């Protein structure tokens, strides 16, 4: 334990001996981590937003105009118990008329039309999405079931919506991990290269230490510690900068009718980022010394 602390102390004093070079290297590490982090944050936020609004299938049900409201009421009850239902909105014909009026011009008095209301009873059902072909099958099945309800006039469901959701989920599935992978590669390559190069300038020192009888860990320890420290401080700084940026921008898009609150990276992503950067920094110290 004391030896570990001692090694870390040596690593730090080594760093202090070339303060500028180490500062630059650390800043470079920070900057790459920030870039990767901003990227992850963007993906994360867009993903969240799209999944929230688009990850559902919606059915629009219109009963025949002459259906008894009682029959409709019963069906509404049953519908609200379907498995997988996320939300249900129901409209009696008169509610629909009011809604309609508002959509057009704001509150308008349609009471004179009441007796002859041309609008049917209706309902909007939203379901969470089951991705893939299975989902399409299920949606078609449900469509048939709903159409067979007594007094049902028309059932629309928007295959677009389903397509969109599918599209997005496919996109995320096919792209998110590759992108994160590429990102990891970039971070690895750039951070690793930077560390490797900054160690190359110290190769004489490493050789001489070994010639005067230093054990491998005596040489490698402080380098690993310094690498880890640079990785940690670099990624820590990066996460701090990201958090500051997020706080500063969180409310920027949070106005009507967008209401988009930019949120920070989730725990697993920011820890992964910090972890990868630190690990890469350490590993490349290690590799650079081996040669």
């Amino acid at each position: 334990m004391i030896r570990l602390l001692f090694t870390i102390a040596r690593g730090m004093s080594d760093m202090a001996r070339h303060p500028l070079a180490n500062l630059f290297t650390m800043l470079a590490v920070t900057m790459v981590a920030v870039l990767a982090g901003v990227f992850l944050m963007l993906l994360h936020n867009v993903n969240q937003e799209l999944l929230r609004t688009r990850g559902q299938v919606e059915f629009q049900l219109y009963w025949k105009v002459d259906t008894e409201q009682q029959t409709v009421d019963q069906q509404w009850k049953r519908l609200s118990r379907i498995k997988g239902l996320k939300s249900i909105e129901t409209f009696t014909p008169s509610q629909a008329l009011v809604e309609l009026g508002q959509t057009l011009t704001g509150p308008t008095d349609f009471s004179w039309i009441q007796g002859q209301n041309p609008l049917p009873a209706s309902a909007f059902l939203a379901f969470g999405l089951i991705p893939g072909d299975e989902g399409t099958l299920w949606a078609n099945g449900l469509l048939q079931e709903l159409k067979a309800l007594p007094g049902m006039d028309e059932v629309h469901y928007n295959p677009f919506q389903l397509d969109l959701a599918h599209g997005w989920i496919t996109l995320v599935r096919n792209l998110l991990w590759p992108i994160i992978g590429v990102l990891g590669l970039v971070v690895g390559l750039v951070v690793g290269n930077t560390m490797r190069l900054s160690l190359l300038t110290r190769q004489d020192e490493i050789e001489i230490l070994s010639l005067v009888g230093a054990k491998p860990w005596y040489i490698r320890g402080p380098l690993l510690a310094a690498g880890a420290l640079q990785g940690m401080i670099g990624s820590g700084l990066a996460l701090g900068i990201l958090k500051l940026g997020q706080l500063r921008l969180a409310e920027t898009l949070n106005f009507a009718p967008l209401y988009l609150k930019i949120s920070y990276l989730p725990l697993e992503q920011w820890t992964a980022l910090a972890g990868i950067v630190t690990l890469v920094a350490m590993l490349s110290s290690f590799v650079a010394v081996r040669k």
Partner: protein
Amino acid sequence: MVEFKGVSQRFGQQWALHDVSFALNKGEFLFLTGHSGAGKTTLLRLLYGALRLDLGRATVAGFDLTKLKRSQIPELRRRVSVVFQDFKILPNLTAYDNVALALKVRGLPRSQSDRRVRGILRAMGLEDRAYIKSERLSGGEQQRVAIARSMVVNPKLILADEPTGNLDADLTDHLMDIFRQFYTYGTTVIMATHSREVLERVPEARILHLEQGRIVDTASPPTEIELYGGLP
């Protein structure tokens, strides 16, 4: 302390050492002589584990070089200390820190090493140059830092490769006295040198004369002049 049996070492096509055999007891003083490129440094490099033995058998300070593992090299280098022909000191450390380094890697705390480092620097005539970055020292001063570093650890065996090439006659005499002291106290010394003056300072020493990688057993360096081509 050192035993070589039929050691040969090859670089590419060329044999830098060829069938070298000799034995050296604890507390002996051995000069390595020979023309430039004869294989002196190569022989020394074998002794501190910087080269792997190609052919033959060799032991040094209890280590069997034929079976030397990577992990044993640091141990070997703690018993055998070296004055390198090209010094190999760290240019941006002070003379003091360069010498102290050899004790530091052995885990000696600064409080214990300080007296020894100062003492050896004084013996080398470097007391007023101790806190100057080594890259700013003169050639001879750097060479003395390298010698000081090899001596400060009280080694069992000192390998010195041309340790007086940058020093004048007076300093050379003085340093040879120090080497002799080490050797009279029981340290084994192997010294590669070109200088006849150096050889004369330790008349009781054995001499191993190399020629193109082979041992030519003789007690004094050759006097024949080997001729090279003319001017371009």
